[in-house]
């Protein structure tokens, strides 16, 4: 069954609303101080902040005097009174004070029995709670407890009287939720910060890795402060830590916009400016508050503004995630969106917890510090996944690139070889045309001039010799001619030149120049040798054979060229055969060709066989 995109979005929306409530329920369950039937724990039946409602003072006023370690100097103190009626059902009753730091006075039946933890041996004492034994006859008596703390912490936590066993267990639970769990969460967060920080160092261009590592480290600092009371943070620093949460939300906004590539520069600028302004206001107020020691009013109002802005910023962040979900609905965007919903709802709960009177909401701590970890961890997971994927892709690309480089290199080398070959050919062609020009304008004209001269002296031998020289020069020019591309072209020129001459000698010439020789290309020196051999054979036939039929044939066979010059004369004299052969054989052997002369009365055949390499045989 296919689920449409719309259905997916609706499903996610339902999860967005319900998941935070489930998370809240889970946290409340973990942070349950009242999980034992109430008759064992004795709640304060009444409480007041007014000194007039309590038993007579002994003159002690709330100051920092007698504090265990004198921390948080300068912050005003406030006192809260709790009243208990201790029933008989409580065996070995102890007084349990969550967030037990600070001073307390215990009055039993109008008598002050002790003040501060140092006055008695506490059953347990850790950073978040203390339990002290009551005096033996506590059962049935009325007990007053005055808790004196710095103003910001006075309203937090709870005080009750319970059996020692139960108080011990509560202390352990408190230690778990306030000490061990944050430690675990912090360890996880810090490990992510280290991993992502390393990734940022490897790829500095991926700024969001840097953002992530930085903010997670700041948030971890906040957590350390919250749980490690022994570290002497200054009060001022404690205030700054609230701003870290603000900056963390801001960084998350930047992060989304870059990670999901949904730019919103104006929104980013606006949020950044609000955070900066709040920071400046905060600095001013906090410093004034410290100097005047009178910051209850400032503190509360400013804190409320800060909390509201947290909420607004968190909603903006969540909206951005929703944009990401609509753009690309996948595990990355959906999980982060749901996580942002959890942060908003839990943050809202914390806000209420902070402003409502103690006891209005269940739980003993702020929960945001835990759930804010969820998006952080999700970030980390997704960044690591993306990093792994990117690294894998980069590896693949590298291989492709390597292959490409090899191919390109091979292609370049081949091109270079071709180019140098072309260059060589061009140089040859240039040289050839220079030769042609020289012969043309110089040698040819001079030979013609000499011929004209020889006519005047009427020297037949000289004339013949000059004509032969001219003929040879024409063969050379033909063999060098760039327009005569094939053997067929060469033979055509030769045929054209000798046709009239042969006709005049009375020979009947039969030409067989195969069309397939059109595809035979000879180098200039080869062409010249072939032409000279043919010419020599023809000349011999004309001069010496005495026949009247000449057959000139050029064929391309499977294994090479075959040139045949055949006449019907009475055969060549031995001497001529030898002399003619000598020249032709030299030329043929230069060509690597085979030459065969068969001469008998009525049939003289000169055959040359030229093996062709690199020329495909005619099909």
């Amino acid at each position, binding site marked *: 069954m296919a689920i449409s995109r719309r259905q997916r979005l609706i499903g996610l929306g339902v999860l967005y609303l319900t998941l935070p409530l489930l998370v809240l329920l889970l946290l409340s369950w973990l942070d349950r101080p009242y999980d034992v039937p109430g008759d064992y724990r004795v709640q304060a039946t009444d409480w007041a902040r007014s000194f007039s409602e309590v038993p007579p003072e002994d003159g002690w006023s709330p100051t920092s005097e007698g504090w265990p370690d004198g921390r948080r100097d300068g912050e005003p103190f406030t006192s809260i009174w709790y009243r208990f009626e201790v029933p008989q059902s409580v065996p070995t009753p102890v007084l349990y004070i969550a967030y037990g730091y600070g001073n307390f006075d215990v009055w039993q039946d109008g008598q002050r029995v002790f003040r501060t933890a140092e006055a008695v041996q506490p059953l347990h004492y850790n950073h978040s709670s203390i339990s002290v034994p009551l005096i033996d006859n506590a059962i049935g008596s009325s007990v007053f407890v005055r808790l004196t703390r710095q103003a910001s912490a006075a309203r937090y936590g709870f005080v009750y009287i319970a059996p020692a066993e139960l108080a011990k267990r509560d202390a352990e639970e408190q230690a778990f939720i306030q000490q061990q769990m944050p430690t675990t969460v912090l360890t996880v967060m810090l490990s992510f910060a280290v991993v992502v920080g390393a990734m940022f160092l490897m790829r500095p261009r991926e700024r969001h890795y840097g953002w992530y590592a930085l903010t997670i480290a700041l948030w971890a600092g906040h957590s350390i402060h919250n749980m490690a009371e022994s570290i002497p943070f200054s009060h001022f620093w404690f205030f700054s830590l609230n701003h870290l949460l603000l900056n963390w939300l801001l960084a998350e906004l930047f992060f989304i916009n870059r990670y999901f590539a949904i730019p919103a520069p104006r929104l980013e600028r606006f949020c950044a400016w609000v955070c900066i302004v709040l920071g400046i206001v905060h600095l001013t107020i906090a410093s004034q508050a410290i100097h005047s020691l009178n910051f209850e009013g400032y503190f509360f109002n400013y804190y409320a503004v800060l909390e509201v802005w947290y909420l607004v910023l968190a909603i903006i962040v969540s909206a951005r995630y929703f944009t990401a979900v609509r753009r690309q609905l996948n595990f990355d965007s959906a999980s982060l969106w749901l996580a942002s919903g959890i942060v908003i709802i839990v943050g809202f709960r914390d806000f209420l917890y902070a402003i409502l009177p103690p006891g209005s909401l269940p739980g003993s701590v702020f929960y945001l510090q835990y759930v804010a970890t969820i998006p952080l961890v999700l970030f980390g997971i997704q960044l690591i996944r993306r990093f792994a994927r990117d690294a894998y892709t980069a590896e693949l690309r590298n291989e492709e690139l390597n292959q490409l480089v090899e191919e390109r290199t091979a292609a370049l080398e081949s091109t270079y070889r071709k180019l140098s070959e072309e260059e060589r050919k061009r140089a040859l062609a240039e040289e050839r045309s220079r030769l042609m020009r020289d012969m043309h304008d110089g040698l040819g004209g001079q030979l013609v001039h000499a011929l004209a001269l020889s*006519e005047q002296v009427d020297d037949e031998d000289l004339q013949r010799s000059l004509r032969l020289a001219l003929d040879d020069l024409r063969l050379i020019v033909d063999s060098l001619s760039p327009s005569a591309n094939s053997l067929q072209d060469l033979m055509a020129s030769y045929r054209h030149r000798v*046709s009239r001459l042969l006709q005049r000698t009375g020979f009947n010439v039969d030409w067989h120049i195969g069309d397939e020789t059109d595809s035979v290309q000879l180098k200039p020196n080869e062409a010249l040798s072939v032409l000279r051999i043919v010419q020599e054979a023809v000349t011999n036939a004309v001069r010496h054979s005495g026949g009247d039929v000449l057959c000139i044939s050029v064929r391309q066979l499977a294994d090479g060229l075959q040139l045949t010059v055949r006449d019907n004369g009475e055969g060549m004299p031995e001497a001529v055969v030898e002399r003619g052969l000598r020249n032709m054989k030299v030329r043929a052997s230069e060509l690597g060709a085979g030459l065969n002369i068969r001469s008998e009365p009525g049939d003289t055949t000169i055959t040359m066989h030229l093996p062709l390499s690199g020329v495909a045989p005619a099909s």
Partner: protein
Amino acid sequence: MADDIRVFVLEDDARTRASLLRRLNAAACIETVGDAGALAEARDALAALEVDVLLFDLQLPDGNAIELIREQHLARPDIPVLVISVFGDEERVIAAIEAGARGYLLKDEPGEDLAESVRRAVEGESPISPAIARHLIRRFQVESERRVNTAENPLSDRELEVLRLASKGLTYQETADLLGVTVNTIGTYTRRIYQKLAVTSRAQAVFEARQMGWMGDGH
């Protein structure tokens, strides 16, 4: 004699010129009526001379004869101009034909061949070599490709066939025998091909000039 073919020879090498004149004059029906060794000299001599055939060497001390060929062809298109050359190599000869020449002669041809070629030129025939034929085939192929839009082939099938056979070195006689026509006809075909080449070349020149904006549309 009054019916002799009147020939004018332009050749810069004096001895070669003398040899040519001797060979021509030795032939019956041919009479050389003038000769020159340079372009200017030839131009002056031809201004007041009745001739039937002009034989021009191309390379002369005072320049190339191509321009003179063009002038003569325009002035008296009926008088054939033949180029005299050592090799008959196609590039120079083609350039001359484009300017209006009717063909070429080899400088060392025996007297009878020379006379035969001159006679044929007067009768309207033109000699052709395989290299020139090959060149023309290629040239007109390019031409017909250029004109492909007008579906106009500059050469007839017969003319193309003549060129094809000439490119294989066949003589006019052999070509005529193959095609079943007279030798004269083949020579005439060749002359027509040359004329077309000259016309095409002029048209091409005009076309290119117009492309470059040298001439108005009135031309």
